[in-house]
């Protein structure tokens, strides 16, 4: 049980004791909160007294009347905002006018409850403010610890891993119950889809292993003089089956003997990922141009396709983990959503840069620049 300190600022003793009665033994719980919340009440009959208490104690929630004998509620609110005090404020006043409500919320009041209120109205308001406070503090804590990103990563990951299992299980169940016929051929599409999902899952797991190694910094690197031309030829061999399947032609334009000092496997992953994307997101019978050129300091690799392209909005998210551009043109393309995120990390590991240019329905062009060193 966590105790939240509630400061009640009101000049009417009846209101203060009323709130005290309502809040006694009142607790707030939500399914996603680890603990229940109970409340400790502290009274102030003037704004001046309230400020004194705010300065000397850690208050979580402030119930604030506007009509006070000395300084008014709005002034107290302004003070709270000025010192960036970590509490949520709810205005309680019998002079509830729209003006005041707007003013109060503009300068940071969370909520507004007109007086007189029923015990239930107060409880509902307290519940909502408690939830807000909890979420606010939780988000801040998570941001501070970088946990939010990790949590997001994990929940998306488990989603990506579970979806294929569910899909395959679903198909198997249909087959087990012979739902669409007695002949194995009746299930051909389902078998094909299951294989496809398994393939996707395997890619995801392999990509994930690459990513984990990269992230943990435990990836062993073997730096040699590597001929990018050779790597490009190899990558083209690797993706050839995919290219034939989509009837996409890949053109290579590069000088031979383009040596840079790097890890050969890393370069292969970079080229494989970019080439397979250029094919996957291409039109049937489309083209891919792989150009590699060199100046004194760096090697520039461009991979240009004649594919579906993407909007500038999609481009912004493209290199993030698990981002897959979802629209009617990409719905039949499988992928882990990790390829480009891995590619970018690999490029950066090599001290290089990567960027994309794209026009919807015309194509995309990825440019990678790697230092020769």
């Amino acid at each position: 049980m966590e105790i939240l300190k509630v400061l009640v600022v009101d000049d009417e003793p009846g209101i203060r004791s009323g709130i005290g009665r309502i809040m006694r033994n009142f607790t707030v719980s939500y399914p996603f909160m680890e603990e229940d919340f109970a409340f400790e009440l502290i009274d102030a009959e003037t704004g001046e007294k309230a400020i004194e208490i705010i300065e000397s104690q850690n208050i979580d929630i402030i119930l604030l009347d506007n009509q006070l004998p000395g300084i008014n509620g709005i002034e107290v609110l302004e003070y709270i905002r000025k010192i960036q005090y970590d509490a949520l404020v709810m205005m309680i006043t019998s002079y509830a006018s729209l003006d005041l409500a707007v003013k109060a919320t503009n300068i940071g009041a969370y909520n507004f409850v007109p007086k007189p209120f029923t015990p239930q109205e107060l409880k509902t308001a307290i519940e909502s403010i408690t939830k807000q406070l909890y979420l606010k503090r939780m988000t801040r804590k998570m941001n501070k610890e970088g946990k939010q990103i990790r949590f997001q990563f994990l929940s998306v990951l488990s989603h990506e891993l579970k979806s294929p299992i569910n899909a395959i299980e679903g198909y198997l169940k249909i087959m087990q119950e012979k739902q669409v016929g007695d002949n194995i051929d009746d299930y051909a599409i389902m078998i094909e889809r299951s294989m496809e999902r398994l393939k996707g899952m395997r890619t995801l797991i392999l990509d994930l292993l690459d990513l984990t190694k990269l992230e943990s910094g435990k990836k062993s690197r073997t730096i040699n003089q590597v001929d990018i031309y050779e790597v490009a030829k190899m990558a083209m061999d690797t993706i050839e089956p995919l290219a034939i399947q989509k009837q996409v032609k890949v053109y290579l334009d590069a000088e031979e003997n383009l040596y840079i000092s790097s890890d050969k496997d890393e370069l292969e992953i970079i080229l494989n990922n970019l080439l397979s994307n250029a094919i996957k997101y291409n039109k049937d019978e489309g083209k891919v141009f792989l150009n590699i050129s060199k100046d004194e300091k760096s090697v520039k690799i461009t991979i240009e396709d004649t594919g579906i392209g993407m909007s500038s909005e999609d481009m912004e998210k493209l290199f993030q983990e698990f981002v897959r551009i979802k629209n009617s043109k990409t719905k039949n393309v499988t992928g882990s959503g990790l390829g480009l995120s891995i590619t970018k990390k690999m490029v950066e590991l090599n001290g290089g840069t990567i960027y994309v240019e794209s026009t919807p329905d015309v194509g995309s062009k990825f440019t990678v620049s790697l230092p020769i060193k």
Partner: protein
Amino acid sequence: MKSDIQKTILVVDDDSDYLFQMKLQIEKFGFNVITAEGQNQGIKILESTKPDMAIIDLMMENMDSGFILGHKIKQKYPDVPVIIASAVTAETGMIFGVESKEDKTWIKADLYLEKGLRSDQLHREINKLLKL
């Protein structure tokens, strides 16, 4: 009699295999099924069609796509029952209730179902919400 007319159920999910399986299953119950592969496509269909019920996934284009879509459906057609079907609890341990009054203020759905429900259970829940 209204119940003689075939009811139409909109199923929204970004997993095409799940959609295929749900369509097969729900059509067997005797309903008409329209499918949408995400929040945006779902919204587009809702512009021109009023289904008798919607079954929507939670995580689609965005992590909260299902909530947003549920909200939009209820805004446009308050009387159309909405089921949020997700695997989110099994995946993250997060629990969403939609039954209490407070839950209803922020989750616009009539029922939350975990994916992988048995066919007969699904049928029962659909019938209950359609008052059949």
